[in-house]
């Protein structure tokens, strides 16, 4: 007798897989059917997610269904679903955004020759992401973690004729893989000590007894390495801006709201386990802070609209990690949820502009009349305000929660960094908004460079425009209203947490200070970009040093490039390939040549002058005689 919850969960998980299989095997020739199938499948997932939320939203006990998928010696790999408030919340978020983005893509991707493939990969992603969300053990989570990375690779490189896109896909895959290696090693370490990878088992306090404290810290940091890769944190942060080469809906779905958030989700998932090691938590906090600030500075100088949001994604993910690492489970998850909403909205709005004006350059969009696209621009402004943390939007509440957690830290530097981050965030967000709202019409450059090679007809059918606008409006709702649900969410999430959530002191000055910082950023942006005679050049752009530093991503990319070129390509790879050709093969070929040469030398005895042969013969006979008779 199958439980309804299990049936719902399985339906929700397997529907996208089925859609993927059908699309890739049978339906490649009929793109519209593929799109419909994919949307229906993810709609089914959303339905089952909502059903599960309704059934289990109130119950404090997590549900786990698990079967043994594979047994090999002592190793047993389970497969199943794990339903607790966190996974349910995440599942709803993922399914919702997947659905909205897929609907939006109907308009955005209309007419693309690879539409069927696009929806196939989207279904693959939906399956992998949902299964990751519901994974009951770390190994299953890792499996889908990798699959999510794979679909990210495939979708970034979707327009594979563009060199930059394939390059970005490769970079994304390899860099996240670097993190995954750490993650896998962490899993191996945990497995070697604990013998079990169930998330529930790992999240008990008894785990600490199975480890040496230092080993535990190492294991946690290794797993955190996976988070760093997937969530594009310092030092593996540069793949995410490049990943914007993919179609904009992909960026909205994977590279802002869901996939990159999987790292943060993993942190939250293992939050009790992580909090066993204060050292590791401190490292996580530092990494989150550095990533947040670095990415924010990078966002201040770029003119590519998608890149700005990509940097801001990194920055906000770092902010979530700060919240989690500073001890507030709720703050991190809450910010994750609100961020998913408003960041997806930001990307989708950006997609409308890019689609319409065929450029990624925010200045060019503004000059070409970006403000005539009223609905997207309003939505984007709303979302940017939420991103900046202005009341009363959702971002304000979640940011405030994180700030509170930071304020509870003994060292005030974290709070200072957080406030600085809020200031920078507001600044770069509204820099973009103001550049589109209030363009300078002085130099009427009407030939924007076509950075988005994806061509399409300008005269769009009405339904395509509509299909792109509806998701915006739908997403704007949570951006407006999610903040009001803070207390509900808090109690809902707390039910799933085994340890007690630390009660944070209520600091009345904190919301004011935080929004004050954000407001300051906004005002600075207004002075530099918004007002009538604004210089339209940011303070960071004035100095060539800072500008190149920020635009070159603090030279991190260049460092990696040099690393790959010098150490790997020209160093180790050359060493190995050269070693193969010259040392090993050289030795073998030398052996062969030696054999031939010695053969020649011996055969030379038969080719010298006849008298020498005679002499040799006699010499041999004489020595034989010596040997036999003496």
């Amino acid at each position, binding site marked *: 007798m199958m439980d309804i919850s299990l049936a719902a969960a399985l339906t929700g998980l397997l529907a996208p897989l089925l859609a993927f299989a059908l699309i890739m095997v049978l339906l490649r020739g009929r793109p519209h059917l593929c799109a419909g199938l994919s949307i229906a499948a993810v709609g089914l997932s959303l339905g089952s997610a909502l059903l599960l939320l309704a059934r289990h939203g109130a119950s404090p006990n997590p549900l786990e269904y698990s079967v043994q998928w*594979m047994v090999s010696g002592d*190793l047993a790999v389970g497969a199943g679903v794990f339903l607790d408030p966190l996974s349910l919340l995440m599942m709803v978020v993922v399914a919702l955004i997947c659905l909205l983005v897929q609907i939006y893509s109907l308009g955005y991707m209309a007419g693309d020759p690879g539409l069927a493939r696009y929806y196939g990969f989207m279904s693959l992603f939906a399956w992998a992401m949902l299964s990751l969300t519901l994974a009951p053990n770390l190994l299953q989570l890792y499996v889908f973690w*990798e699959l999510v990375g794979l679909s990210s690779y495939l979708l970034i490189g979707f327009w*594979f004729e563009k060199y930059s896109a394939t390059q970005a896909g*490769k970079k994304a895959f390899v860099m996240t893989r670097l993190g995954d*290696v750490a993650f896998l090693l962490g899993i191996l370490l945990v497995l070697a000590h604990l013998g079990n990878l169930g998330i529930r088992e790992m999240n008990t306090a008894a785990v600490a007894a199975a480890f040496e404290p230092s080993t535990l810290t190492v294991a946690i940091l290794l797993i955190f390495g996976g988070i760093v890769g997937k969530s594009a944190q310092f030092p593996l942060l540069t793949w995410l801006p490049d990943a914007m080469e993919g179609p904009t809906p992909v960026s909205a779905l994977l590279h802002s709201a869901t996939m990159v958030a999987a790292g943060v989700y993993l942190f939250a998932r293992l939050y009790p386990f992580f909090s066993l090691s204060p050292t590791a938590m401190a490292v996580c906090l530092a990494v989150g802070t550095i990533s947040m600030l670095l990415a924010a500075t990078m966002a201040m100088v770029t003119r590519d609209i998608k890149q700005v949001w990509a940097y801001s994604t990194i920055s906000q993910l770092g902010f979530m990690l700060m919240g989690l690492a500073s001890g507030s489970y709720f703050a991190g998850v809450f910010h994750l949820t609100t961020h998913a909403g408003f960041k997806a909205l930001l990307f989708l709005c950006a997609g409308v502009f890019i689609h319409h004006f065929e450029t990624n350059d925010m200045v060019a969009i503004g000059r070409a009349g970006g403000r005539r696209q009223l609905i997207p621009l309003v939505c984007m402004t709303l979302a940017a305000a939420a991103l900046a943390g202005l009341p009363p939007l959702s971002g304000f509440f979640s940011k405030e929660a994180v700030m509170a957690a930071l304020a509870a830290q003994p060292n005030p530097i974290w709070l200072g960094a957080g406030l600085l981050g809020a200031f920078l965030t507001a600044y770069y967000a509204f820099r973009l908004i103001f550049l589109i709202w209030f363009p300078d019409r002085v130099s009427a450059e009407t030939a924007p460079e076509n950075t988005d090679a994806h061509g399409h007809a300008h005269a769009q059918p009405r339904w395509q425009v509509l299909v792109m606008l509806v998701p915006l409006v739908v997403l704007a709702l949570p951006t407006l209203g999610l903040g009001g649900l803070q207390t509900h969410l808090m109690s809902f999430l707390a039910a799933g947490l085994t340890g007690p959530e630390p009660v944070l002191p209520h600091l009345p000055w904190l919301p004011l200070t935080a929004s004050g910082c954000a407001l300051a950023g906004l005002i600075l942006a207004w002075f530099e970009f918004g007002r009538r005679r604004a210089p339209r050049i940011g303070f960071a752009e004035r100095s060539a040093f800072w500008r190149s530093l920020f635009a070159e991503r603090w030279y991190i990319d260049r460092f990696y490039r040099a690393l790959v070129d010098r150490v790997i390509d020209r160093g180790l790879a050359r060493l190995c*390939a050269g*070693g193969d050709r010259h040392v090993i093969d050289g030795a073998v070929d030398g052996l062969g040549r030696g054999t031939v040469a010695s053969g020649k030398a011996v055969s030379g005895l038969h080719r010298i002058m006849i008298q020498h042969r005679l002499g040799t013969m006699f010499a041999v006979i004489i020595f034989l005689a010596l040997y036999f008779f003496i």
Partner: protein
Amino acid sequence: MHISPTAFPWLSSILFCCLGGLITILLLPGRRHQEIKWVSAFFSGLTLVLTLNLFLLYDQRVGGLQFVERVSWIPSLGITYFNGIDGFSLPMLLLSGIVFFTAVLTMWELEHRVKEFFALLFLLVTGVFGLFMSLDLFFIFVWYDVSLFPMYLLIAIWGSTRKEYGAMKLTLYLLAGSALILPGIVYLVVQSGLQTFDLTALMRADLFSPFEQKLGFFLFYIGFGILAGVWPFHTWSPVGHVAAPTAVSMVHAGVLMKIGAFGILRLGIFLCPLGWLYWAPLMALLATIGIVYGVFAGLRQTDIKYVIGYSSVSHMGIVGLGLATVSVEGLNGAVFQMFAHGIMTALFFSAVGYIYDRTHTKALDELGGLSHTMPVASGYLVIAALTGIGVPCLASFWAELTVFIASFRVYPLYATLAVAALVVSALFMLRVLQRTCYGPPNERLAHLGDVSLGLGLPRMILVAVILLFGLFPALMFELIQTASIPLLNGLPR
């Protein structure tokens, strides 16, 4: 070891099926290409059906040796025709069946000396099947050499890119290997004093002294290790892969390299367990070097088949690492990796072979934009590359994962290095994809057609197998366990 005799000689029927195919092909006139291909497809398909049948009939609850056939052949020397399969050899038989069938289908477009090609291919596969099922040391050696001999001709006649050099190098290396194996066999048989080549009789734990076991294992390890591509005896393999025609590359990388690992397992580990324990650290070291070395060397290659060749070195290193762990998980992972890697490289070479037949180039610089002209064909290449990277839900992921888990307990440093090699492996595989499949449409290749349904069939089968065992690894692991657990339990500690 539990031994269950059989009523119907299933194993011999596989051999006779191959031989029947060989004889039928030899009897056909050489110019009737179509008939020869159909006959080859029929007989190879029949062998595939037979191996599948064995896979289904094998009783996993009983385990041990099943379908045993034993006929005394030269009693005075103790040589018997002795066949039987267990959880280790059955996956290999299945692998050989699949790869053989798909290899024959892959060569459907061959026009040059068709009769000789398929005849030699059948001879080669007869040796391979014989080796995997034989339990008599003498026959194992004979089958080993039977499977090596046709390789030379197949590569030297139908190959490309320095084919004579590749064929000669391969043959010399493998003969050097057999020059170590034969003394090993003779040494152990003589030392046992039993006057028999029967593997099961020689497997008794107390038969050989520790020194004899160490020496014997070393001989087998190096001898078979050459064939398994153990670093630093691997350089024949990329050269050979590159030189060989498509089907031979498939059989060669897919099955023949597995013979090496299987030989280490069957002869080395079964006969000389103490030697195994003694040499395990060396095996782990060489295997890890091979894993890391393979990916780095692969990074520099410009010929797509060289890339695959070096990735094979790396993947076979994982097999070696699994064997070196001396644990159930490690053995399971190693044998599964043998299977998965066989299917994967077969797919890889098959996909590349199709592209090569059309474009007449294997150089990465000259390809590019293939996904525009042949999306399906390049799709197969993409799947093969992803399997090579170890993406989950594709067969080799589970094998690698199991090996990593097992080796991490025993050799944490090696395991870390091996896991780290995954990154470079991803880097170079994706680089290959980027340079071949992706990029702007290539005008030079624009006229080429995509793979048709019939020609796609072998690749489809391989992809299906990869997905099947990737999604349901338990199918394979439960089978392998029936052999690995008794082996480990019987180990003298």
